C-alpha cells in the first residue's frame, strides 16, 4: 500500500509539473513564435521539477518555481561559458515576467498554443503528438510508443513541425469567429485522437496509454474552461466522459471482452455519466448541433439502460441518421445498421449494411464484418455468419476481442441463441 501511495504522490507531482510546464511553454511561445526555443529554455527546469517534486512536494506556485529554476540555470550556464548572451531570448522573457508579477499567475496562453499545434498547415498526423509534447511535456519516445511509431521518426517529425511553426509564421492565437468553427474542430479532433489512443487499452495495463485517456479528458476540460460557450467543445468532453465511465465494464473478471450491449450497468461510473449528461444538456442549450454532441447523445441513449433496462434504440437510430448526414462516414453507417436491426429486425439491418458493400474501405474493417456476422446469425444464416466472423477474426489485432469473436463463431453451431 505504501508503494501505491508513493506512486500516487509521484503521479500527482508529475501531473502538476506537466501542466505548469505546458503553461510556461505556451506563454513563451505565444510571445516568441518559437516553440522549440521555449521548450529548450524550460527543459532543465522541467527535468528538475520531475526529479524533486515527488519527494519534496509540489511548490505553492509551481510556475514561479519553474521560471526561477529556468532563469538560474541559464545564468549558471552563461557564466560557466562566460557568455551572457545566452541569458537573453526566452530566459529574458521569463526574467521580465518575474519582475513584473513575482507572485501572480502568468496568463494562460495554452489555448493559443493548441490552435497553433492544430493549424491546418501542419500534417494532421503530427498535431496530436505535437500537442502532447508542447502542452503536456511528454517526450518523443513516450509519444512514439503510444502512436506505434519509431522514436527517432517521431522525434524528427516533431522537430520538423516546430520548425514549420516558426519559419512559416504560424500564429499563436484563437481564430476570429468567422474561422473559429473549422479551426476549433481541428483542435477538438486532435484531443479526441489523444483520448482514443488511450481508450484502446481498456485494462489500463499500459500506463502510457491510460495517461493519454486522462490527458485527453484534461485537455477537453481545459478547452471547455477557456471557451465555455462552444457547444462542440462541451459535446467532446461529454463524449469522452461517457466512454471513460464504461472503462471498468469493458472486460469481465476473466479479462474477456464485453460488448457495450452486454455490459453490467452497475459497473459504469455514475459520477462521470452524470457529468457528461449535464455537459450535453448545457451544449444543447447553445443551439448548434455537431458531430461530438451527436456522438455523446448516442452514448446517453445507451446508458439509459441503467434506468430502463433497455437502450433507447429508436433515438440511437435517429442520432446515427443525423451523424450520417453530417459526416457520410461508413463507420457511422455500420452503427446505424445495427440500430436499424434493433428497431426493425435483422433483415432490415442487413439491408442497411448492403448499401455499404461497394465501399472499398470496409473490406479490411473488422467492425463491419463483426456487425454483418451478428446480423446474419440473428437472421438464421449460419453459413454466412460463420464466413463473416472468420473475416472479422482475421482482421482483429486485439487478442481479447479476437477470442470473443472466436467464441461467437463457435456458438453458431451449438444452438447458442445469444444473437
Amino acid at each position, binding site marked *: 500500500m505504501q508503494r501505491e501511495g508513493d506512486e500516487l504522490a509521484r503521479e500527482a507531482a508529475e501531473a502538476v509539473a506537466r501542466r505548469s510546464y505546458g503553461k510556461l511553454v505556451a506563454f513563451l511561445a505565444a510571445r516568441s513564435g518559437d516553440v522549440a526555443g521555449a521548450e529548450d529554455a524550460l527543459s532543465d527546469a522541467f527535468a528538475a521539477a520531475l526529479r524533486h517534486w515527488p519527494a519534496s512536494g509540489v511548490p505553492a506556485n509551481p510556475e514561479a518555481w519553474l521560471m526561477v529554476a529556468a532563469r538560474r540555470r541559464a545564468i549558471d550556464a552563461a557564466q560557466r561559458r562566460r557568455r551572457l548572451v545566452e541569458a537573453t531570448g526566452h530566459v529574458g522573457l521569463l526574467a521580465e515576467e518575474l519582475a513584473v508579477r513575482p507572485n501572480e499567475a502568468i496568463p494562460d496562453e495554452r489555448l493559443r498554443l493548441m490552435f497553433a499545434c492544430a*493549424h491546418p*498547415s501542419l500534417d494532421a498526423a503530427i498535431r496530436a503528438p505535437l500537442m502532447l509534447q508542447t502542452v503536456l511535456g511528454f517526450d518523443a519516445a513516450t509519444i512514439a510508443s503510444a502512436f506505434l511509431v519509431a522514436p527517432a521518426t517521431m522525434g524528427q517529425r516533431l522537430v520538423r513541425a516546430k520548425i514549420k511553426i516558426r*519559419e*512559416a*509564421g*504560424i*500564429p499563436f*492565437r484563437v*481564430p476570429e469567429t468567422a474561422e473559429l468553427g473549422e479551426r476549433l474542430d481541428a483542435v477538438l479532433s486532435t484531443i479526441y485522437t489523444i483520448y482514443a489512443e488511450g481508450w484502446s487499452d481498456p485494462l489500463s495495463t499500459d500506463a502510457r496509454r491510460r495517461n493519454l485517456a486522462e490527458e485527453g479528458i484534461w485537455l477537453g476540460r481545459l478547452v471547455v474552461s477557456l471557451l465555455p460557450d462552444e457547444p462542440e467543445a462541451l459535446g467532446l468532453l461529454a463524449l469522452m466522459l461517457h466512454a471513460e465511465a464504461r472503462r471498468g465494464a469493458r472486460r469481465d473478471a476473466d479479462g474477456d471482452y464485453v460488448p457495450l450491449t452486454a455490459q453490467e450497468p452497475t459497473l459504469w461510473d455514475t459520477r462521470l455519466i452524470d457529468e457528461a449528461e449535464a455537459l450535453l444538456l448545457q451544449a444543447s442549450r447553445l443551439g448548434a448541433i455537431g458531430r461530438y454532441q451527436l456522438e455523446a447523445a448516442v452514448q446517453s441513449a445507451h446508458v439509459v439502460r441503467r434506468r430502463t433496462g433497455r437502450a433507447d434504440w429508436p433515438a440511437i437510430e435517429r442520432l446515427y441518421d443525423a451523424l450520417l448526414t453530417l459526416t457520410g462516414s461508413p463507420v457511422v453507417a455500420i452503427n446505424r445498421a445495427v440500430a436499424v436491426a434493433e428497431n426493425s429486425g435483422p433483415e432490415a439491418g442487413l439491408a442497411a449494411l448492403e448499401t455499404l458493400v461497394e465501399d472499398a474501405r470496409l473490406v479490411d474493417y473488422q467492425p463491419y464484418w463483426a456487425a454483418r456476422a451478428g446480423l446474419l446469425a440473428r437472421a438464421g444464416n449460419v453459413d454466412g455468419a460463420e464466413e463473416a466472423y472468420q473475416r472479422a477474426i482475421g482482421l482483429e489485432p486485439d487478442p481479447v476481442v479476437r477470442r470473443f469473436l472466436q467464441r461467437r463463431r463457435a456458438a453458431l453451431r451449438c444452438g447458442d441463441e445469444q444473437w
Partner: protein
Amino acid sequence: MQYLLMIYSEETAMQNRSEAETGQLLAAYGAYTEAVTKAGILVGSNRLRPVATATTVRVANGKTQVLNGPYAETREQLGGYYLIDVPDLDAALSWAARCPAASHGTMEVRPIWTM
C-alpha cells in the same frame, strides 16, 4: 513576415475561356491587386507568360544544358505571384483565399527566407 503567394492554374483552361469570361477574370484580378495595394501589404506582383515560353538551364559536369519547356510538367502551372508583407501565416492564407486564382486553381503560400 513576407510571403510569396504563387498562382497555379490550368493554362489551357484559361486559354479556352470566352472573351467575356477572360475579361471578367482580369477585372477580378485588377480588383484584388487594388485591394492588396490599398491594404499596404504589396511588395511585388507579376503575371508570367505561358509555360510554352519557358526554358530550363542546368550545368552538369561543366556542360551547360539548355532545355525547352518548364522544370516539371504539371496539370496546373505557375502563372504569377504576389509578394506580400503580413504579420503571420493566417493573414497570408486569408489574402491567398481572396485571390481569384484560389477559386479556379491553387494558391501555394511560402514564407520568404530572409538572407
